[in-house]
């Protein structure tokens, strides 16, 4: 099943028109010895057989575990209208809106997405999307390097360790110097940051809430950075912005984050959505596509891709980023999701998550030997100190039907007994109670 429309008869006639004796002639530019007779792959199968195979494979995953896993990726409920609208063929089978008159749907949707991100983060301009929260942070780091002309970056250890790995990976050939600043008691360490900041620093990278779930206000740190001519880059969890101070109002210069929680399924790691917002003064240094408002000849409002001189297809090796295809459909989902929630809904949702997390804490702290780390306030994710190896506990809880959280030992030395637990609006009181009971039982 190759989805080819034409029949043998069509092909015969077309070959004639095009002046070929046979199909092989079409490939005569390819030296014969470089052609293969056939791929060593099985023949195609029918739709129903392929469905059966994938359906069976889908059942070979423990997706039914009650999910307390977070770590930057959250099990929020996705309203049905997000799926329905984002699966409109006109959206998902279109491509980048190079022809604006034939793409006003996509363009306006992205413009609205950019607007929503600006409002959420309290920043002035947001791009059309980047691959994910991690590469967005890398792009922010490089943007800071471009803006400041400096090559050193301070990195708070509360930033998602996966993202820190991404930063290291991408910059390994670029002589960028990173300086990790350890959190103290789960919170960004002002003293160490102040000590590390100097005129060589391009940016300090922070995360709110940080990887341990801790909530912070980085206004003072941003001020410290600015005093040294450095930028403040903040990676944020968008749902938390329903409740928490926006990075823009803390003085952040670049805000990035993972948009998965905005109506995207977890889907085993992607596609996700990197968002990025900044101040207008930096817009020409920003990577990624950008939609702007304009008018047509009769004055009707319309939208186009703009400031393209930043991009690879115009600037080639001098572009701000090499990104081309981004995550447009994911941005659309986020936009629909945020429109569904609206001003009040996002706030209520954030409250709900926070409140439930507080309840979960009361249940866990009642378990002998378990300590809820309370050094910092938290939003919907928090750290438990267990009396034994967290990864062992977690594995036992899988048998009880729970994905109980993320053991911190993998990325934080000496934290082998610590467990990161996330709570979303989908977790019921009963589920939290059952997890607490199960945990008590397996300890």
């Amino acid at each position, binding site marked *: *099943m190759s*989805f080819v429309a034409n029949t043998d008869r*069509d092909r015969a006639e077309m070959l004639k028109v*095009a002046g070929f004796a046979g199909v092989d002639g079409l*490939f005569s*530019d390819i030296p014969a010895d470089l052609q*293969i007779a056939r*791929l060593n*792959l099985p023949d*195609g*199968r029918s*739709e129903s057989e*392929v469905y059966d195979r994938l359906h069976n*494979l*889908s*059942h070979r995953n423990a997706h039914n*575990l009650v999910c307390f896993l977070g770590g*930057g990726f959250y099990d929020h409920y996705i309203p049905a209208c997000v799926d329905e609208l984002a699966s409109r*063929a*006109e*959206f998902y089978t*279109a491509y*980048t809106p190079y022809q604006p*008159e034939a*793409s*006003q*749907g996509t363009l306006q949707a*992205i413009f609205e997405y*950019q607007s929503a991100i600006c*409002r959420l983060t309290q920043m002035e301009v*947001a791009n059309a999307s980047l691959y994910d929260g*991690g590469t967005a942070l890398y792009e922010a780091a490089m943007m800071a390097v471009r803006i400041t002309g400096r090559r050193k970056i301070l990195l708070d250890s509360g930033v998602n360790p996966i*993202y820190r790995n991404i930063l290291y*990976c991408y910059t390994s*050939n670029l002589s960028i110097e990173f300086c990790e600043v350890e959190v103290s008691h789960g919170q960004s360490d002002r003293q160490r940051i102040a000590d590390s900041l100097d005129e060589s620093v391009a940016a300090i990278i922070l995360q709110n809430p940080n990887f341990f779930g801790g909530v912070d206000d980085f206004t003072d740190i941003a001020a410290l950075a600015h005093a040294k001519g450095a930028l403040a880059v903040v990676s944020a969890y968008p749902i938390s912005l329903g409740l*928490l101070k926006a990075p823009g109002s803390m003085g952040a210069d670049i805000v990035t984050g993972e948009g998965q929680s905005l109506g995207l399924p977890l*889907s085993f*790691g*992607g*596609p996700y959505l990197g968002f990025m917002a900044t101040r207008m003064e930096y817009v020409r240094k920003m990577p990624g596509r*950008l939609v*702007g*408002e304009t008018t047509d000849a009769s004055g009707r409002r319309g*939208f186009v891709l*703009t400031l393209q001189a930043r991009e690879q*297809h115009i*600037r080639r*090796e001098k572009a701000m*980023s090499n*990104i*081309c295809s981004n995550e447009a*459909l994911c941005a659309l989902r986020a936009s629909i999701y945020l429109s*569904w*929630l*609206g001003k009040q809904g*996002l706030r209520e949702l954030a409250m709900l998550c926070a409140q439930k997390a507080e309840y979960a804490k009361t249940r866990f702290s009642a378990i002998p030997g378990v300590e809820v780390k309370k050094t910092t*306030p*938290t939003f919907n994710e928090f750290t438990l100190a267990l009396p034994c190896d967290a990864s062992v506990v977690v*594995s036992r809880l899988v048998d009880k039907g729970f994905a109980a959280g993320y053991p911190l030992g993998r990325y934080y030395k000496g934290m082998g007994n610590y467990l990161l637990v996330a709570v979303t*609006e989908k977790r019921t009181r009963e589920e939290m109670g059952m997890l607490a009971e199960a945990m008590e039982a397996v300890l």
Partner: protein
Amino acid sequence: MSKLIFERSSPGRRAFNLPGLSEAEKSCRLHIPGKYFREQPAELPELSEMEVVRHFVGLSRRNFSVDGQMYPLGSCTMKYNPKICERVAALDGFSSLHPLLPQLRGGGMLTQGALEVLYETEQMLCEIAGMDAFSLQPSAGAHGELTGMMLVAAYHRDKGNRKTRVIIPDSAHGTNPSSAAIAGYSVTTVPTGPDGDIDLGKYEAALGSDVAAVMLTCPNTLGLFERDISRIAAMAHKHDALLYYDGANLNALLGRCRPGDLGFDVVHINLHKTFATPHGGGGPGSGPVGVKKHLVPFLPTSIVVKRADGTFALEYDRAKSIGYIAPFYGNFAVILRAYAYMLLLGGNGMREVSENAVLNANYILAKLKGRYDLPYARQCMHECVFSATRQLAKGVHALDVAKALIDRGIHPPTIYFPLVVKEALMIEPTETESREQMDEFISAMLEIADLAERDPKAFADMPRTTPVSRLDETKAARNMKFSA
């Protein structure tokens, strides 16, 4: 004029509805000090669910799309996206899978189904591309290029090579030089020769011991097969420069010719092109990177391995790996669609793809070449690149041709790319367009050619059938209005 969703907002409207809290939950006090709270809620729009639905349904109707129109956008391979692939991507057992789940038990025992999808996809891509291993992590073509360049750098670093340059032909897509530059290389551009192949002499001259890699698209962006590919490869390898394959145009070769056999060391493949995953209005895509043996140790972390007992695991501990280029395993739901597509086609179906893609392009070429200038008068592969120079003589630009096509219900080809062709019209029908549909396109193009001769002024106010007519791009750049 279509209202912005913010303009449809009315205070207090709500689409949202959220679960309530139990008394026990309600009674828990938040321990967040006041100073951490935001003062004003974000000014998101307030609408009822029906209003949200009508808004986005309305927007969708202002788009051209593959499911609505022929969409011969060159270099983008806008083929039909089978609906079954959407169905499998929506399966709960995949879509609700948390990416950290593999870490909760025995290196992936909780996600065997998903890992099998990844593993088998890699295996199939190896066979298709003639490579030894694949990483599925890159999120798009350009991401694959950057990953590839980082692999190149790691390879040379490991060998102690000192390399600073990457050679790229002038016909290349902008992402190629950009990716090379972003990976830390300087770029040497080599011109296209008179017949559309790379200028071999200039290429040889550009080579040198400081060349880390040569990035090629093949067929190149002119839709032409690089006939000297074997010599190009040999010459690069002589300098220990690696040959990089931009797989954007793999549709032309599928099942008939493998980049690995042509001498490429690193390739990326655009699953959202060759493997029919939907383009989503500009993504998400997926740009897996494949390598020959000598580059395997450097592949990104993690990789999927098959254990002796037939189970699958994620391997993280890889000393020479370039590290994390994505948070997890790539755009899984995109990969899943491509996997389903590959199963549907099988080896036989894939060969049909290239045969029909190339035939369709040559059919269009044959029918249009009398009326549009063909800068390189050769048979083409999966796309044909014309130039509107003849029309330009009358004052009609490639852009005008594009807008006239819109009014005829067809999405325009790619225009003004590749840069080496003046007034380029880059037409890629793909294998899924029918002859009748192509004939409609051809008629439209011929009609437009007539019109350009007869009444070149008629184009100025095209398109006329769209919700807006030609938009003022300069104004957009000047006004810098990027949000509501």
